[in-house]
């Protein structure tokens, strides 16, 4: 299996993602600079990692969404390749229009960095199949603009179509309907605010994030 992690100027979880994916799935992972207009051939997963791409200038994810590599990411997503945006990567995906909604400043105004309990709402997705009967997961959030926002109609649609895949058990940032992660209509694009890459082995406090990578890439 092959995965790529996009590196934007200001990404800071790119190597965490590479390590997490390699250790949990055995897939080979290429780091791809955002200035590339092409991605390696035959990818099974593209990850947009956490961080502060372009220093969050203008809005978190706004500049990164216009990076040359995002054209290739959009094309890959349209072909059905799995794309996962984690934290800042989720912000980039909403700014790029690959996922609905937006991420707002946290309701408490503070940067929130802590482990959170999640409900795995839908285990029938490419990103959650490996959770099986496990309907709870612990991962770490680290965000200042992590409050998911979408209008009621969009939220109803996401819920109705089973596209809310992760939900906070105790909402840490004022996310609408406690949404922590959603997938695209075709189910191959995931945006998730908590970090599976910071919860992939028990030494990190939780290994629940491993199942996310393993759902896409196998190895479980």
């Amino acid at each position: 299996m092959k995965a790529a992690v996009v590196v934007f100027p200001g990404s800071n979880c790119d190597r965490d993602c590479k390590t997490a994916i390699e250790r949990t799935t055995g897939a080979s992972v290429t780091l791809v600079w955002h200035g590339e207009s092409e991605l390696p051939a035959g990818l099974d997963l593209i990850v947009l990692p956490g961080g502060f791409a372009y220093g969050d200038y203008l809005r978190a994810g706004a500049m990164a969404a216009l990076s040359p590599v995002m054209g290739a990411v959009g094309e890959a997503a349209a072909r059905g390749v799995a794309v996962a945006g984690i934290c800042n990567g989720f912000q980039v995906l909403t700014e790029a229009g690959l996922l609905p909604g937006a991420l707002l400043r946290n309701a408490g105004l503070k940067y929130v960095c802590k482990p959170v309990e999640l409900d795995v709402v839908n285990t029938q997705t490419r990103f959650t199949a490996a959770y099986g009967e496990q309907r709870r997961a612990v991962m770490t959030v680290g965000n200042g603009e992590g409050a998911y926002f979408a209008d009621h109609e969009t939220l109803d649609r996401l819920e109705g179509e089973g596209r809310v895949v992760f939900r906070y058990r105790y909402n840490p940032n004022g996310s609408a309907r406690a949404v922590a992660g959603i997938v695209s209509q075709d189910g191959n694009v995931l945006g998730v605010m908590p970090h599976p890459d910071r919860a992939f082995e028990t030494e990190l406090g939780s290994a629940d994030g491993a199942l996310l990578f393993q759902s896409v890439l196998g190895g479980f």
Partner: protein
Amino acid sequence: MRAKVEVFLKPGVLDVQGKAVENALHGLGWAGAANVRVGRVITFDLAAANAADGRVEAEAMCDRLLANPVIESWTVEVTA
């Protein structure tokens, strides 16, 4: 030609920054301060032939990059 764009969160979207500033103003004794909204001002030069064309261009820039239409609304001012 000079454009000035003001971007704010839409009325229905909770502006937590505005809320915090409002609370701080109350703390300083301005009890009447209400509906505080914190926004962003962006100014730039335009090469448009006239103000109307400049406005069209600036509006497109807002829609595409300067604002996020999902959560923000904006006003455009173009001056010669």
